[in-house]
């Protein structure tokens, strides 16, 4: 299993790049954000704590993706390690897929640890004030985390593609965050502009052209189904969720396939 061997190498590389410390930092930041935000809410401290905690995770994990991809892929091309790692008679895609699998394993492992941490914290914070609408940390929370994992998968695939095609590592950062910002916000902006017409001139035309983005980018904003866990009502799950999952998943696999194709054709100089 050459991919498996690549995965192990990549894991060792990530550990060498102090992944453990980064993970501890993320855990600490999320714990702090969760606990402190609870103090700013009068009637729903647990809900706000969970809400802000999820937002922190959704902002910090993409940053971690970028750092890991820069470490595992960009550095490989930047420092000409490929002279060694791709020199043997072996397939190029093995290297890429092995590293991507390692990235995914680290990411999902950290996401799991973060969700366990949140469950523990919310159990503790939930005892502060009896809310009329308590948070749902069971099955609904699981669904929220699963949707978030899919969101991260899309971003990881995009960062991988950018690392293969871009000539500088910083483009991975700029490209991934730019993509994230647009893909997460355009759906909500289209919706908000229908009532907030004074923000831009010709709001209708602006809305229509933003709506065109729906054919180019996956709707990552719709993957944020946290209202399920915040208010514990299944009605907040969008009715078209199987299509949403399918479109995001196929987009991620498509990006990954594109990355493999680009690496096969990459001319190293």
């Amino acid at each position, binding site marked *: 299993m050459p991919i498996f061997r690549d995965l192990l190498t990549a894991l060792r590389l990530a550990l060498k790049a102090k992944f453990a410390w980064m993970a501890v930092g993320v855990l600490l930041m999320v714990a702090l954000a969760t606990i402190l935000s609870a103090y700013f809410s009068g009637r729903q401290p647990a809900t706000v704590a969970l809400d802000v905690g999820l937002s922190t995770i959704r902002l910090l994990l993409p940053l971690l993706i970028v750092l890991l991809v820069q470490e595992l892929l960009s550095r490989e091309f930047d420092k000409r390690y490929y002279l060694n790692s791709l020199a043997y008679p072996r397939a190029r895609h093995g290297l890429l897929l092995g590293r991507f699998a390692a990235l995914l394993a680290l990411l999902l492992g950290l996401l799991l640890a973060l969700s366990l941490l949140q469950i523990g914290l919310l159990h503790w914070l939930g005892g502060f004030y009896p809310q009329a609408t308590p948070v749902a940390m069971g099955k609904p929370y699981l669904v929220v985390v699963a949707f978030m994992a899919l969101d991260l998968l899309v971003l990881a695939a995009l960062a991988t593609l950018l690392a293969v095609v871009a000539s500088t590592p910083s483009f991975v950062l700029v490209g991934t965050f730019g993509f994230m*910002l647009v893909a997460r916000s355009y759906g*909500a902006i289209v919706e908000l502009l229908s009532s*907030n017409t004074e923000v831009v001139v010709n709001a209708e035309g602006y809305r229509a052209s933003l709506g065109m983005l729906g054919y180019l980018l996956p709707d990552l904003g719709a993957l*944020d189904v946290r209202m399920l866990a915040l*208010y514990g009502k299944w*009605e907040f799950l969008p009715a078209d969720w199987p299509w949403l999952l399918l479109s995001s998943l196929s987009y991620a696999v498509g990006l990954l396939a594109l990355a493999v194709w680009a690496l096969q054709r990459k001319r190293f100089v």
Partner: protein
Amino acid sequence: MPLYRYLPLLLALLCFALFSVASQWRSQAPTHETPVIEGRVVIAAPVLLVLFGGDRFLAANLEAMRLATTGVDWGQADTGYLVRAQQEVAELNPCHEDNYYLANGLLTWGGADREGSEVLRRASACRFWDEFPPFFYGFNKFFFERDVETAASYLEEAASRATANAAGFRKFAIMLKAEQIQDEQLAVDFLQAEHDKATDPKLKAMLAKRVMRLQGLVVLRDAQRRYEALTGKPLTEPGQLIEHGLLAAFPEDPLNLGYELIDGRIVLKKLKVAGVEDR
């Protein structure tokens, strides 16, 4: 030594000198008068969304924290700011519980009932299981706008969602339709109950002011009723209450907004917020 070697250096010095002179000249030129911005800046919801990385929930939470902590200074709510800020939060996340609760407590009873009610209406639609937003909304519709039809339908909605209060909401809706309710006393009771339940001392103090304001209205309307029973004529001038000895003095409004007589009915005077009062 050939001069051309120093040419780039001389050019650099010349350019920096030019830059310095131009900057000096600019700073001495009279500046245009900057327009005076009244009130605090509130960013529109779509822009906030982008500023917070496409995360509407984070934007709603942080804005709600900001308005809850900074919209209230020295025990006085900055209503002009809250009116706009709470609308934006309601657009980002209409389900936000703190937002609708604060809007009902501070806006509706602080002179901006339409804006407060709008937040409640959105909350009522989003929180489809919660009985309180439709109840507050229905009550406000009746109390401020005398819209019995809408009020009764929202109270029915609250009753259908309620777990323990269903009978009370239904009874209230029926009484509204029968128009035999002394709404100001009821409003005092509700606001008093909200005040007693509040844990934050600042919020408690502010709600206490609103209770006092409503108690003033109770006193005035009571005097009006006695005046009309005494003289058999409708009240046209509030001063008549004092002339007839029904009141020793007009009640003090701790919010300094006061009361007014509109269409033969004493009501709470509304706050005039520039740009929003005529919507």
